[in-house]
């Protein structure tokens, strides 16, 4: 047995140059499709795949889900050998930070969408929302499967306990602290917490604040670390104030399980949190009792302002440049993208096509005004090469400042050096 296996190895090894995925021969097509793991999304994907396969009997979709923390590793390893799935569903950070600079993705195929040019495809979407899938030259490499703005959730029952009016939510971070102290006094010890999960979460929270305080992680040309700029320092100071100095909650009590990101809010222990549309959906599912008490309000700002600033991010469907059946892959994507209303109704995923917020399912969505407003005022994250290292650095800086009490300036000086080494 072992000898046979070894012979097979040697024989196969000597003929190792061939192989690869099967070509689309004889009309039958197998398309591999990878997404991350978000349970409601998986269910809808499975439904849509079944529908598409019954409409196109010659097409078979092989669907795989991979946990977020492992997604990039798996993608890079397989793409580096020219393998990998035909269709990738990944966030704009990974797209712009890793896949586009490495030229791993294929440009969008307008024919699959029944359009004659990329411009016509773009015309359907709210301006700016496709930027997350564009390279430096402005070429488009994907269409969004979900587009998320940032909002704020408050537990109205807690507010009433503390004698606060839920109709007057905090507009500034200072108010979050003030309200937090009243909530503490009413027995709600976790008034507001950030999410301390993997480094991706740290950096999205950090960029949310930095967008508001005028800070950034790297300079506009992406060549210099910019963590010691005043705006960036202000962002971390704000974080430390909210999470540590003000004492409105103990960051150490925040549950750190990435598999249940909004657990503390959902279980009714936490009173206020930064949220996304899909997170509300998740809470509705897991903790319907708490959900009834939650209200979604605009994200607080550093100062009372008429021009609020938010953060947006998106997940995109894109096609592997090494795929041998790009046209078929885009056709399937086009089908997925055409089911806009179901994405909204079933999963609360927004497809930012023009006028989405006035469509019937959008109107039926709770808090639609707040959410729609957050899209209009959002900025995409900064992204650069080796962004995974940069995100790790930000995580370490925030941990040091928030949990270990290291002075903000010192934490950011060290982080700045580290980021410079990463991008330099």
């Amino acid at each position, binding site marked *: 047995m*072992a*000898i046979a*296996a*070894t012979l097979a*190895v*040697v024989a196969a*090894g000597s003929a190792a140059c061939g192989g690869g995925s099967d070509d689309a021969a004889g009309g039958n097509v197998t398309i591999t499709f990878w997404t991350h793991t978000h349970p409601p999304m998986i269910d809808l994907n499975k439904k849509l795949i079944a529908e598409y396969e019954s409409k196109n009997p010659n097409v078979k979709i092989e669907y795989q889900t991979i946990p977020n*923390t492992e997604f*990039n*590793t798996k993608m*890079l*390893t397989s*793409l*580096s050998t020219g393998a990998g799935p035909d269709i990738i569903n990944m966030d704009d950070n990974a797209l712009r930070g*890793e896949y586009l600079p*490495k*030229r*791993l993705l294929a440009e969008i195929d307008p024919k699959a969408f029944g359009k004659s040019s990329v411009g016509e495809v773009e015309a359907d979407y709210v301006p700016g929302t496709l930027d997350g899938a564009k390279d430096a030259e402005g070429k488009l490499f994907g269409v969004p499967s979900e587009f998320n703005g940032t909002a704020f959730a408050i537990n109205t029952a807690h507010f009433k306990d503390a004698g606060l009016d839920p109709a007057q939510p905090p507009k500034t971070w200072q108010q979050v602290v003030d309200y937090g102290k009243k909530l503490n006094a009413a027995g709600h010890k976790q008034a507001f917490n950030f999410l*301390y999960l*993997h*480094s991706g979460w740290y950096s999205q929270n950090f960029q949310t604040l930095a967008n508001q305080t005028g800070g950034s992680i790297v300079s506009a040309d992406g060549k210099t670390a910019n963590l010691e700029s005043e705006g960036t320092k202000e962002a971390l100071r704000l974080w430390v104030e909210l999470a540590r100095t003000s004492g409105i909650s103990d*960051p*150490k*009590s*925040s549950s*750190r*399980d990435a598999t249940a990101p909004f657990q503390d809010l959902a279980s009714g222990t936490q009173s206020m949190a930064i949220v996304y549309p899909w997170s509300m959906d998740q809470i509705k599912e897991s903790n319907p009792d708490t959900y009834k008490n939650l209200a979604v309000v605009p994200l607080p700002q550093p100062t009372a302002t008429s021009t609020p600033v938010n953060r947006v991010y998106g997940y995109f469907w894109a096609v592997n440049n090494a795929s041998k059946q790009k046209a078929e892959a885009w056709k399937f994507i086009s089908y997925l993208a055409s089911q806009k209303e179901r994405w909204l109704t079933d999963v609360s995923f927004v497809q930012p096509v023009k006028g989405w917020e006035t469509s019937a399912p959008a109107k039926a969505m709770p808090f639609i005004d707040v959410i729609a407003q957050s899209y209009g005022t959002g900025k995409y994250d900064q992204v650069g090469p*080796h962004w*995974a*290292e940069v995100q*790790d650095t930000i*995580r*370490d800086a925030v*941990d*040091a400042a928030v*949990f*270990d009490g290291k002075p903000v300036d010192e934490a950011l000086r060290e982080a700045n*050096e*580290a980021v410079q*080494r*990463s991008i330099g």
Partner: protein
Amino acid sequence: MTAPTRPDQASPPAVNPRHRPSGAGIRRRRRVHRRDLLGALLSVPALALFAVFAIYPGLRVFYLSLFDYSLTAPPEFVGLDNFRFLATDPRFRETVLNSIFYTVGTYLPALVLALLLAIVLRRMTAGLGWVRLLYFLPVATSWVAIAVVWRLVLHPDGLLNQTLGLDVTWLSSSSSARWALVIMGVWKETGFFLILFLAGLARLPAEVHEAALVDGANAWQRFWRVTFPLLKPITAICTIIAVIRGFQSFSPQVVLTDGAFGTEVVNQFVYKTAFESARMGRASAVAVLMFALLIAVTMVQLRVFRREDS
């Protein structure tokens, strides 16, 4: 007494290329030759698998350590640049220190504990034989599954804090995260060394002990003068294994802390640099350095133990 067994043959200088099994002299001429040829063939399945799936990729790692290689573009030769970068990289230095902390913090207590337990358990009163099995249990657990369990144990409201009446956030502060890993590590690894020490003790001749008893030596003297010197070979092996296991640690850090709060170890740095940052060349350079370090440490250990022997 047996020499510190075979691992010394792992270090090239110790190898005698003419080493032949003691029985070889009896063998005769032509037949011997054919038999040995047949014998050589027996190693082919293992060696072929090794050549294809370990040595070839391993050599490629050495080769790649001289390149800038992003996985998706062809490698570009950069000479010793990767090593130069690492020489001044604070993150790399920190991960080496973290690895040393984890190795010493986990394996020193684990070895001492295992040795002491072995001495007691060996002479455990009848009826308490099952006790050793309790210590063996963690050896049979897998990191991924046991980490799911330990996350609950180390939770602020988990088993550890509640039992000891503590209020430590084990996994979210720089002062405690490294200790959380050490606690889980000692729990998981002690049993493995206990097995080795029990095996070592079982081979000790009983007369030695009896003689010492007649001499009137107390338990402590007996241990230091009689038992411990006899356990030298097994202690040497345990120490070498402990250092290798400690420095190659990866899963516990990944599953418990993901390297946050000063717990990132060298292998994690290698993994992240290679697969998350797609810097294969630099990651390979770290692997080369680790390889050299482990070989060097192992040789030093063997020297020390051998010198003490004589």
